[in-house]
């Protein structure tokens, strides 16, 4: 059972308006059968300090990543996780979170790896919801466990691995990190912890479009005309071309993946979640430094 889509005028201009809901829409639909609201934040305790009534928490690190291997959880673990949150295969899932929906977009991307059909973001996320004085509670959400099928994760359509990137030269790459990380001055976002990359810089030919450029001051997504100016006019993306986006561990680029796929309608966008923590430590992969994208390597290095 799916819940009706938000027909706000702002969303209608996007390629897939059904992927966003507004605060007004969500407040009006809270508690409706078939709807599950999920909070996904950078801080693992933020949900506990107050959350949308009836919402459940999914943590990007402790829930969605495999605890041992550097990979996402498998189909069985995903089914167990989301069923425990009251999510069925046909649930409408609305995800919201802190920091312009940074981690909410990451969770949405992982839901998409498992082919969950109806998953949406709350435009503006947690901060805007609170700023608008909408209801927040610390009451523990009691959910009835649902049943969710074990679905095999499908990585090929929206996820890129290192070898995919090596084979991708000649097509557009988007580096969504800060200019300092892109140029090679540093390997982590300003004020973020070192996550281990041995070399600094960017993948040659990648255009630098920091992820937060897609967000307005209030954390909502910018209107389609402004997004077109950033990604089509600015970064030179053209409809029909395959695109790979990356950042440091694939979270910020999930946000850009959402914008390109669901708001601008690009049909072949993949997120390289190995991102700089893999590329910047891999042996014999090409790296460019400085503010310019740099040229594609003439030969593909040994794998």
């Amino acid at each position, binding site marked *: 059972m799916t819940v009706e889509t938000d027909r706000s005028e702002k969303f209608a201009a996007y390629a897939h308006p059904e992927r966003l809901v507004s605060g007004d829409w969500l407040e009006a639909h809270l508690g409706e059968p078939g709807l599950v609201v999920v909070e996904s934040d*950078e*801080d*693992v305790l933020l949900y506990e300090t107050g959350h949308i009534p009836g919402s459940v928490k999914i*943590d990007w690190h402790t829930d969605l990543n495999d605890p041992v291997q550097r990979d996402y959880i498998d189909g069985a673990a995903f089914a167990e996780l989301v069923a425990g949150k009251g999510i069925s295969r046909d649930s409408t899932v609305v995800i919201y979170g*802190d920091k312009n929906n940074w981690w909410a977009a990451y969770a949405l991307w992982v839901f998409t790896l498992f082919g969950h059909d109806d998953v949406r973001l709350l435009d503006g996320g947690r901060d805007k919801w609170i700023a608008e004085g909408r209801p927040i509670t610390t009451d523990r959400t009691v959910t009835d466990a649902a049943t969710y099928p074990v679905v095999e994760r499908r990585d090929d359509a929206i996820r890129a691995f290192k070898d995919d990137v090596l084979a991708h030269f000649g097509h557009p790459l988007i580096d969504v990190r800060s200019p300092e990380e892109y140029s090679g001055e540093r390997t982590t976002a300003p*004020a973020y912890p070192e996550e281990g990359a041995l070399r600094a810089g960017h993948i040659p030919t990648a255009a630098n479009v920091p992820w937060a450029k897609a967000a307005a001051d209030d954390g909502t997504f910018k209107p389609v005309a402004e997004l077109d100016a950033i990604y089509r006019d600015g970064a030179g993306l053209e409809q029909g071309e395959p695109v790979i986006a990356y950042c440091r561990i694939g979270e910020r680029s999930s946000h850009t993946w959402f914008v390109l796929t669901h708001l601008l309608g690009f049909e072949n966008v993949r997120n390289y979640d190995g991102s700089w923590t893999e590329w910047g430590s891999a042996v014999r992969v090409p790296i460019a430094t400085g503010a310019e994208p740099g040229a594609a390597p003439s030969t593909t290095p040994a794998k």
Partner: protein
Amino acid sequence: MTDHTLPSALADIRDDFLALEQRERLEMLLEFSNELPELPARYQEHPDLFERVVECQSPVYIFVEVEPDSVVHLYATAPKEAPTTRGFASILVQGIDGLTVDEVLGIPDDFPNTLGLTAAVSPLRIRGMTALLGRTKRQIRERIAA
């Protein structure tokens, strides 16, 4: 790891965490977060004295005071929107305040990894607490060398 250098206040906090189920450990961390004391008035108007712990994902600042008799006081401030970081800071503030210089410097550097929070919070996030402890010790060494 040897236990005899871990001050009793910190050992008690560690034992309290380890006695709980994973989910309850997160709740206790939130309680610590809520208990982080406000800065004393004399420091509220002196953000310049505080050092940013850049290893933490959220803006957290610390300042260490060493009294003439070697008693240590740790002050920390972090936003309400960063409850995990506040919780880490609060554990150290409560566990360290009133100890002597030697006692604080003797705290094992891997203390944050012994709280049983790695699974509930993730190893990545625990690193922020390790950095808090490391910077606290460094400030103490600077104060006593001055």
